[in-house]
């Protein structure tokens, strides 16, 4: 040890243990701050955990690949968590069945607008073609969006970043925006959150109201289905 005081760091910084620990501890602190501010939208735990961990990686010169070797254990749970959404859905099935028609109409309207608006705005902003393609699936959950981007020969890792940024902005904006519209129907508010901002919107919705969370989870799952069909179609029609 004495020969090289950095050998411990060299060992630890390459081990999954360190990066898993960093991810959990940073998130635990940002989540505690979020709780202490009574879930203020701007204290979004994902946003703050993301830049703190990112800054830590840059400062220590650690590559994302090394980081991900540890963090993948957390990332992996996205799949099982999607399956687990069956439970709140099951427990609230009566309310869900009762609002099946407004849900399906809002699903079609919302998912079309989500894709069309981002493609048109991105073209208007003069973004390069491969960026436009990578932004198109931004309203669905990370794994699905990456798959869509891959099938379009766009950049899956940019698609994942667009998904997370969309989710965070949606989660921050949804409560003040909905309060301003005066809509107090938590089924509708939650459904919009899950459709526009996938799992991060759903996590936010569960913080605000249980029913909002359930509807958000349904919107997120349904939108994953619809958007997989929609993006290739929209891209052929809208992207030059």
């Amino acid at each position: 040890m004495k020969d090289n005081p950095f050998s411990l760091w060299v060992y630890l910084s390459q081990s999954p243990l360190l990066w898993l620990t960093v991810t959990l501890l940073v998130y635990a602190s940002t989540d505690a701050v979020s709780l202490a501010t009574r879930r203020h939208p701007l204290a979004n735990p994902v946003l703050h955990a993301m830049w703190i961990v990112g800054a830590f990686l840059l400062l220590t010169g650690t590559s994302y690949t090394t980081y991900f070797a540890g963090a993948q254990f957390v990332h992996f749970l996205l799949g099982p968590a999607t399956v687990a959404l069956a439970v709140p859905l099951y427990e609230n099935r009566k309310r869900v069945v009762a609002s099946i028609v407004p849900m399906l109409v809002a699903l079609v309207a919302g998912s079309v607008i989500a894709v069309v608006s981002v493609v048109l705005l991105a073209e208007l902003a003069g973004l390069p073609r491969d960026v436009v393609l990578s932004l198109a699936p931004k309203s669905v959950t990370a794994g699905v969006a990456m798959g869509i981007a891959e099938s379009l020969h766009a950049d899956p890792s940019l698609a994942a970043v667009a998904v997370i940024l969309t989710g965070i902005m949606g989660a921050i904006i949804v409560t003040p925006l909905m309060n301003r519209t005066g809509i107090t129907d938590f089924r509708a508010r939650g459904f919009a959150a899950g459709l526009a901002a996938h799992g991060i919107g759903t996590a936010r919705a569960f913080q605000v109201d249980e029913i909002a969370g359930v509807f958000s989870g349904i919107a997120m799952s349904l939108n994953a289905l619809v958007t997989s069909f929609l993006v290739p179609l929209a891209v052929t029609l809208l992207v030059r």
Partner: protein
Amino acid sequence: MLASLGLILLCQLIGEAVVRGLGLPMPGPVLGLLLLLILLLARDRFALLARGPLRDDGIETASKGLLAHLSLLFVPAGVGVVQKLDLLASHGIAIILVLALSVVVTLLATVLTFRLVSRLLRQQDAR
């Protein structure tokens, strides 16, 4: 707890296998969600199924535990932004503005459609 987690993974595994095998354009975990939902509904009808993780709120507790920290699960993918710093330096502001505008438009379109349709339905019922 272990059996419940195992059942969740099994649903996802079957979902992934079916999606890959049949080339369905949907994510495997979403099919897993449908499977677990069908299983929970079937349990209410057939007492035979109410065992193991499907008994005494086993699967319910495990699922709620997973969902309690849903936003944590997005942190690893979010940190991936460090790989895109040069792109964000050149197009960052445009990308953020495009995404922010699009998410606001999507939220409003969805919530207003939902309200409009449920109000129309209620008027129809009242008649």
